[in-house]
């Protein structure tokens, strides 16, 4: 990797928490940020391993902050540290490794994700269960480590390899190949093998019980315990939600016909039924003819009113609608969180969700 060396040294700023920064353990977690000239703690190993790879680097400064202090004053700390780090004109910023230390991982992620948009390459490393991972994996390249500090040397070695690529300005196409966590970003490129051949190869490897790697990982869906049953419908407020795209005519919130980025909340006050002239489907994933003729076929307001009178429950006066058509799991989760908060606030005890 001789080409990594240049006429001048690469400048690195290293971020550490109070423990690795040499201040102390949990009892010093309230330590305010400060700066040390040169490397500190794991920084010495970092510098050594960079040089072993023939990368001419210098850790010009080590920035240290207590984990609790960072967590409690994140905005202020970032406002102070980001210009300070920039002032050192770093070619690369390295944060951590944080292993399984949650607040430390969050701090490392926050620092790196604040620096990347400023054009400063910034990398960190942590364990797969560190909460910093979920928060920052999309915006920051995060090297995977074991959960304890005993993995320090291997972790730093991986960071060095990634760091050298970042210093050279190389595009990181496949984070996993660099020992990083997947970022969940899909990139288009031309593969030399056509898809049918790759699929058959993968299938054969699977049949032969050889390792293979999917090209399309299925998103992870969490599970919730079933809620207790309602004991009686009388007086219970029940809300209707649909992913079938039933909206007031004209789609006032401009909910997208696919890959929806939003949902709508619409009044049912005084409505005994939905009609073709008042409501329509905004969904782009099925033939809307039948839903547009009679929107009750997707959102059954007519029968909700009939059963309301017979069974004595109270339909919630608002319904929520989005388009479930290629909608990302992240967006769906975001909608659900917001809607659930409102429903609970409004005293809704049960929901019927209709999907096309």
């Amino acid at each position, binding site marked *: 990797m001789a080409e990594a060396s240049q006429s001048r040294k690469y400048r690195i700023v290293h971020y550490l928490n109070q423990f690795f920064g040499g201040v102390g353990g949990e009892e010093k977690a309230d330590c305010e940020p400060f700066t040390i000239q040169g490397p500190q703690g794991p920084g010495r190993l970092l510098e050594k391993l960079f040089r072993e790879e023939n990368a001419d680097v210098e850790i010009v400064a080590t920035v240290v902050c207590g984990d609790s202090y960072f967590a409690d004053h994140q905005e202020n700390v970032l406002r102070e540290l980001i210009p300070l780090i920039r002032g050192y004109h770093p070619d690369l910023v390295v944060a951590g490794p944080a292993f399984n230390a949650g607040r430390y991982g969050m701090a490392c992620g926050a620092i790196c994700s604040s620096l990347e948009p400023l054009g400063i390459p910034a990398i960190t490393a942590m364990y797969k269960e560190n909460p910093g991972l979920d928060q920052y994996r999309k915006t920051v390249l995060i090297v995977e480590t074991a959960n304890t500090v005993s993995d320090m040397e291997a972790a730093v070695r991986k960071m060095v390899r990634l760091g050298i690529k970042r210093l050279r300005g190389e595009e990181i196409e496949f984070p996993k190949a660099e020992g990083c966590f997947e970022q969940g970003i899909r990139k288009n490129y031309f593969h030399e093998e056509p898809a049918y051949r790759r699929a058959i190869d993968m299938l054969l490897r699977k049949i032969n019980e050889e390792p293979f790697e999917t090209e399309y990982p299925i998103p992870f869906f969490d599970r919730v315990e079933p809620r207790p049953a309602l004991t009686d419908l009388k007086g219970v407020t029940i809300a209707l939600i649909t992913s079938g795209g039933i909206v007031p005519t004209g789609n006032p919130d401009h909910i997208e016909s696919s890959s929806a980025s939003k949902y709508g909340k619409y009044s049912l006050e005084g409505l005994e039924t939905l009609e073709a002239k008042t409501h329509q489907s905004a969904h782009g994933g099925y033939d809307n003819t039948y839903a547009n003729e009679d929107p009750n076929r*997707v959102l059954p307001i007519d029968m909700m009113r009939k059963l309301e009178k017979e069974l004595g429950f109270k339909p919630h006066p608002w319904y929520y609608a989005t388009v479930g058509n290629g909608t990302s799991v992240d967006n769906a989760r975001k909608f659900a969180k917001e809607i659930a908060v409102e429903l609970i606030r409004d005293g809704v005890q049960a929901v019927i*969700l209709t*999907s096309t």
Partner: protein
Amino acid sequence: MAHVCSIITISQTVGANRIVPAVAIPHPLGNPKLPLAEEKELRRNLLKKALDALQTPIEEQTVFS
């Protein structure tokens, strides 16, 4: 929550607990081939089934078919 949906496997995958199978993707709670009165009866029965599901104690994902 009861999920009235046309594709049961999707509902199971995303983790709904009370699942009520619907009629078809473009008209989950209707059937344009039926005379209006019968279609309304069908819709009423499906919604009633969802309300029953909400009143049924369950331990795990359950399809109320």
